[in-house]
């Protein structure tokens, strides 16, 4: 099996640089999410891997085979790379079965392969339908089956769930991820949805303005973001001003243990402490070794069923948000003693 290696890739759109010197290696069989806000260049990177956009510099290869470098692009049909575009883009003049079989050569076994793929994506009964008779979720399944049919080495998925409603999206994406893992297909999934990236992917590549900001496991991305931008982009944060002293940040929540990210503060330096809301907990939830803490009063509760976001006024006048499981929630106006259950992240103070 072969890895997909992108090294130093840059892609231009007209005069703007859409992808700027991106290097990443996607290991065989891995599902990687390419995460970034709208316009960050993730679709451009995907299209250049598919061979639909030329590279300005750098190279792309699958295993030992180089498929893109400036001035030389192996045409898309000779790359063995499948593509599931944003809107399913089914061929409107072909039935579901003919769409799935588009890349399957004529001859014996074609019908079997089509029905095998159709049932793989759960649409065994619909092969005679026309694409315009399908729901959005069904159309995406057909697009996936169609891309899988020629057994591509790498599969590219461009926001395949973006147009679906929330409930359908959650179910379908889990199903698709399981299917891709079962097939052992190396996959690159473009998304602007943090939750989608974190729940589905083996590793997440965070892209911002064409740069690769961070490439790591979902846990690394969420718990150990490489920059304050990544920290804010992949989840909720609580920011507090404080001073650095020997591995702790003294702030409104007390002296909170923290790791400095991307710089080495000296004792007494002003820093910004970043915490995830769920890292802040009521003191009684903690074992005895938890250190810092602060008194607070619950100001408001935003209830979301499985959990709830609490806004708590600290005695110092600041407000912090904390997330807790929605079991035995305190009421508005209750007093709490807050503590931080794991090391926070320290970033340089904003000048």
């Amino acid at each position, binding site marked *: 099996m072969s890895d997909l290696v992108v090294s130093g890739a840059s892609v231009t759109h007209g005069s703007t640089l859409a992808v700027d010197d991106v290097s990443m290696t996607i290991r065989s069989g891995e599902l990687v999410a390419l995460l970034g806000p709208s316009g960050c260049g993730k*679709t451009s990177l995907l299209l250049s891997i598919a061979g*639909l956009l030329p590279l300005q510099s750098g190279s792309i290869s699958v295993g030992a085979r180089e498929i893109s470098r400036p001035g030389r692009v192996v045409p898309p*049909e000779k790359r063995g790379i*499948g593509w599931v575009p944003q809107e399913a883009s089914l061929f409107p*003049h072909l039935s579901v079965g003919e769409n799935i079989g588009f890349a399957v050569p004529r001859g014996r076994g074609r019908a079997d392969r089509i029905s095998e793929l159709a049932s793989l994506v759960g649409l065994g009964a619909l092969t005679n339908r026309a694409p315009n008779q399908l729901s959005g979720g069904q159309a995406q399944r057909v697009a996936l089956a169609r891309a899988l049919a020629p057994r591509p080495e790498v599969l590219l998925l461009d*926001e395949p769930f*973006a147009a679906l409603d929330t409930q359908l999206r959650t179910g379908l994406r889990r199903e698709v991820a399981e299917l891709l893992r079962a097939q052992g297909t190396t996959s690159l999934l473009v998304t602007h949805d943090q939750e989608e990236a974190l729940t589905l992917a083996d590793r997440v590549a965070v892209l911002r303005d064409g740069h690769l900001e961070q490439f790591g496991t979902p846990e690394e991305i969420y718990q150990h973001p490489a920059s304050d931008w990544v920290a804010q982009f992949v989840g909720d944060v609580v920011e507090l001003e404080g001073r650095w002293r020997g591995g702790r940040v003294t702030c409104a929540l007390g002296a909170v243990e923290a790791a400095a990210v991307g710089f080495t503060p000296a004792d007494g330096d002003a820093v910004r402490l970043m915490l995830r809301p769920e890292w802040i907990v009521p003191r009684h939830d903690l074992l005895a070794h938890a250190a810092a803490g602060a008194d607070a009063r619950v100001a408001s509760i935003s209830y979301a069923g499985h959990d709830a976001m609490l806004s708590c006024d600290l005695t110092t006048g600041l407000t912090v948000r904390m997330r807790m499981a929605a079991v035995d929630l305190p009421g508005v106006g209750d007093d709490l003693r807050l503590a931080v259950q794991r090391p926070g992240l320290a970033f340089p103070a904003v000048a």
Partner: protein
Amino acid sequence: MTLAPPAEAAPELPVAASEVSLRAAGARASAGRTPLWLVLLGSLAALAASIPLVYLLVRGTESGLDRIIETLSRGRVLEYAANSLGLAAATTATALVLGTAVAFTLSRLRVPFPRVWLLASSLPLAVPSFIAGYGWLVLVPSAQGFVPSWLLLSAVTMPYVALPVAAALRGASGDLEGVARTLGRGPFSAFFVATWPQVRPAAIAGGLLVALYALSDFGLVAMMRFPTLTWGINAAYSASFDRAQAAILALLLVVMALLVVVGERSARGRVPRGAARAVAPRTIGRGMLVALLPVVAAAPVVGVAIPLLGLTTRLVQAETLRELDVPRLLAAVGSTVGVALAAAALAVVLALPIAALGARYRGRLVSAIESVGYLGHALPGIVVGLSLVFFSLAVLPVLYQSVVVLVFAYAVLFMPKAIGTMRSGLADVPTSLVSVARTLGDSPLRAWWRVTVPLALPSVGIGALLVAIATMKELPATLLLRPTGIQTLATELWNRTVVFEFGAAAPYAAVLVLIAAVPAMVLSGIRSTAKEEL
């Protein structure tokens, strides 16, 4: 030149995200720049389309400036020119007012059976002007001169204004008119302040077609004995075989037509489209409805119902049926359909590279090629016919009076219809589908064959059908170019009408209506109701 731009794809995704993918699609489309072979094919097609105009310029100017000035200052010539201009101006003004009124009535007021009326308003387009003229002459043999020509041409061309204006009204915001009313304007003033600017480009583009139609019409004015330039060209050519004079008159007519096109370009302007909200038709009183009925019914009655009535009364007379020469009629049907199919095939072949260029590529060269392809729109049939007579005599004498030149003339004249429909058909094939086919292992050619061709095929068919229908209804170029011994339905009808054999002409007119006008009605019905549903 009146084609509406293809509707923008409505992005359902967050705007910025879909912008990226649209830009990506655009970049892919032009990534390989315009392919040289396509430019070459397109240039060849454009070159072919430019032959009639270019050769007319050569022939018209070779007799020298003195001769041109001398010819143009003759009293008859000035009269022809004045008649052409007067008829075109009067017809355009009438069609503009009537067409706008009909469009407004049908799309903004609550009338019974709006679909039926819309369909009826598009019908006059399907009837060739000389059949309308024939039908009237059967009933009123004294209908001759300026006034009948003007009224009948206005009725026949009214749909060119009414249909695009009705479409523009559906896309225009009706709230603005309400706002103007609440700010103190009366109903007419509010229409001109708020709604007219939004439909003006459509109305003016339609007016251009009306003016070109009136300038180039030959059959109707000749039947009604109103001597315009087209009539003068035909007379100069066929009576005296004064070739130089015919060429100079044709040149004058072309200059007038091109001036109309240029004038329309500068007058049309563009409307910035706001978000249009569908406007519910306004309910009007019974008295108002009755008052509007003649407005809406005028063109279908004058341009279709009365001519067809005249045709039918003459057709069912015993004398007509007794004199009917069936083999001769069948021969005319055969040659009419034959040349129409050949013309449709040639026009599609010539139009394909131009449509493919226009659908996917931009640039000066591409728009120049496209403009030349649309030239036939502005060239009167008699001009193309005359120029190709000269051209074949001088350059390819073997082909003079052969069916090849005739079919070529039709292809040049009606190519714009094929370019228009095929261009939008090709442009409607999403580039992403072609890209998907590529990632699934298709070479560019194979992807074109498996994806683009099947999706664009209906538009090719419609383009070919439009050309075939227009060819069957063509008269002046056919008269000049038809090979000896070949008669089409139009020429048989013409030959009998000029000698007042209205009865003998009736079967040819009836068959022409059946095989050309009826498909045109169906097609325009389908298209106008399809537009209605958008």
